[in-house]
């Protein structure tokens, strides 16, 4: 379980906090969703949770222990991040990349990876350079690799952005299976509330660096507030 407790962060030179006294929890076996408008700080929160950034105040705890530089490498073996453009070498084939990177993850499951690729419809692409993949295929490859590492938790930064409905469906199926079959915890950020509301267990609403609302999806989406949330999402969707 990852727990962010009162974390704040601002980028160098800025007077305003991008993330301001924020707390949230990501648990195994659950799909959590972070929703908010562009620029509200969602990506920053995810990077803080992953350890790419260090909070100015507050801390991230992993199974009760504070995350720090010394424990980062071990932490990253159990937690994956999706949404980083540099996760692989785009001039090499997927096969080469997996061969290179699997050394770093003893728990990498090659069979499961091949199965995921097949399920995602890119099973025949492992001898192609990753740079030649379409956006959707690249996202699927990244997610497949992340899931095949058998992490306890996966943090995803807008994995569904700019994808057509077919790709979105494939990806959401992969994520659902990972949660239900492998007890993985997933935290993803998105503004596509409609697509994820049926599969997410917990929702965090973010605004101007703060969590304004959080709770079970049934609590949040089943009333007038839920309608408001959908409206926010639609507004974002049409502007984004």
């Amino acid at each position, binding site marked *: 379980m990852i727990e962010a407790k009162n974390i704040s962060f601002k980028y*160098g030179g800025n007077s305003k906090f991008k993330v301001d006294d924020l707390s949230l929890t990501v648990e195994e076996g659950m799909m959590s969703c972070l929703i908010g408008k562009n620029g509200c700080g969602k990506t920053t929160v995810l990077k803080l949770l992953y*350890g*790419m*950034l*260090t909070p100015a105040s507050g801390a991230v705890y992993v199974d009760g222990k504070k995350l720090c*530089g010394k424990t*980062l*490498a*071990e*932490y*990253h*073996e159990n937690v994956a*991040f999706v949404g*980083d453009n*540099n*996760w*692989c*070498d785009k*001039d*090499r084939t997927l096969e080469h990349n997996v*061969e*290179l*990177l699997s*050394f*770093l*993850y*003893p728990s990498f499951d090659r069979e499961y990876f091949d199965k995921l690729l097949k399920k995602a419809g890119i099973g025949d692409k492992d001898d192609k350079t990753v740079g030649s993949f379409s956006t959707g295929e690249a996202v699927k490859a990244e997610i497949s690799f992340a899931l095949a590492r058998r992490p306890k938790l996966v943090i995803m930064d807008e994995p569904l952005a700019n994808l057509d409905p077919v790709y979105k469906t494939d990806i959401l199926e992969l994520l659902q299976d990972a949660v239900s079959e492998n007890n993985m915890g997933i935290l993803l950020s998105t503004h596509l509330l409609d697509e994820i509301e049926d599969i997410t267990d917990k929702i965090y609403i973010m605004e101007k660096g703060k969590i304004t609302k959080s709770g079970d999806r049934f609590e949040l989406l089943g009333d007038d507030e839920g309608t408001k949330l959908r409206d926010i999402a639609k507004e974002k969707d049409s502007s984004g």
Partner: protein
Amino acid sequence: MNKMKRFHKYISKLNRERIGWIIIWITAMLSMPLNGNGSGEDLSGMFTVSSIILIFIAAMDYVDKYLDIDEPDWDCGIFTAIYGGMNGRFEILMHSHSFDTGSYFKILMTGMIPMQIITIVYLAVLRFFDLIAADVVVFPALATVLIPPVVVLLRAFRFQYLLMHDRSTGSLVLRGIVISLYGMARLLIFAIVFILMMFIGFSAITQDLVMRGIADNEVASSMVSSGPAFILAIIGDIILCYIINNGLGGGKRHRKLRVAALICALVLILTGTGIYLYQSVYNNVILREDSVSVRRNGNITEYTLDDVQSYRVYAERNESFQIELYFKDGKSQRLILDSSEDTNAWRDKYFSYYNYAAELVQKLNERGINGRLEDQAVLNKIVSTNLDPRCAEGYRIIEQLTEAGH
């Protein structure tokens, strides 16, 4: 650690096609020409500087071999093979993954030890058989012990900088300074290597051109004033090394600027080369035991010692020794120019230009041709502190002769 060892082995396998500077390091050290006079004095400076440069290059290449997994943006054939790829991608890639930096660099550190041991043993053997002076061995030995770990540490520092999550200002500034110094040192080393290669190339070409018609058993030396040639070539060289080291860049505009810089570099190098070749062939001075041939823009004037009206021995602005002859036709000529090609007979007869000048002044005095010695204080200082005793001997003779001449 085992995971990192396997990863280290895998990267090594990927980069096996690179030319191993490690092999070149050891081979170059083993085949470095040693001084024929047994004391190592004459080549001591060259040996010391060359070996330190080689050690630095080998250490850098060794580290790059294990932190390099991709082809560069600009594949330039032999240079790609020698200098490898743009290694920034490795750090960027590892930033996204659980990479145990500490363990990996520990493996790199320990991996260097066999090469360091071989080099130290080689230096010890040279010293044991008295093939090289003790003071000459010391600096390369120190360099072998100190430089490779420093290079690895600096690279680890840079690696951590790119991977680090804690970007506090003080830490960033310090790391930035270290990385800049490392980058500058690396560029300087590349530039020096290129200059040395160019120099060797020039010498090979000009020797043939300039010394054509002069037998090796003839006592002769050809002097050339290179003018701005070397400066232009060096500037071009540094720019070229920067481009090769950093590639042509990513964005279109960036690429255009770098391509323009590359063209400028090549123009500078070619211009410098052209000037030097022109000077070597069409503007040179050939010194012989009893004559001086002066070629100006292709026209040759031969002067014997009887054509000399007077002479002057002095120190140039950069405190180097100079002798100038004034001829009866009103012209004058400085004899010791920027670079020279000597026959073996010249080298056998004269240890240095001090000794040549001493003999020349003696012959001129015998003919009743007077000259003057200037800048004695400067020349005395050079002679007493920097010169080989044989050069100093030559200068003392000049001092006595010019006084006697007065």
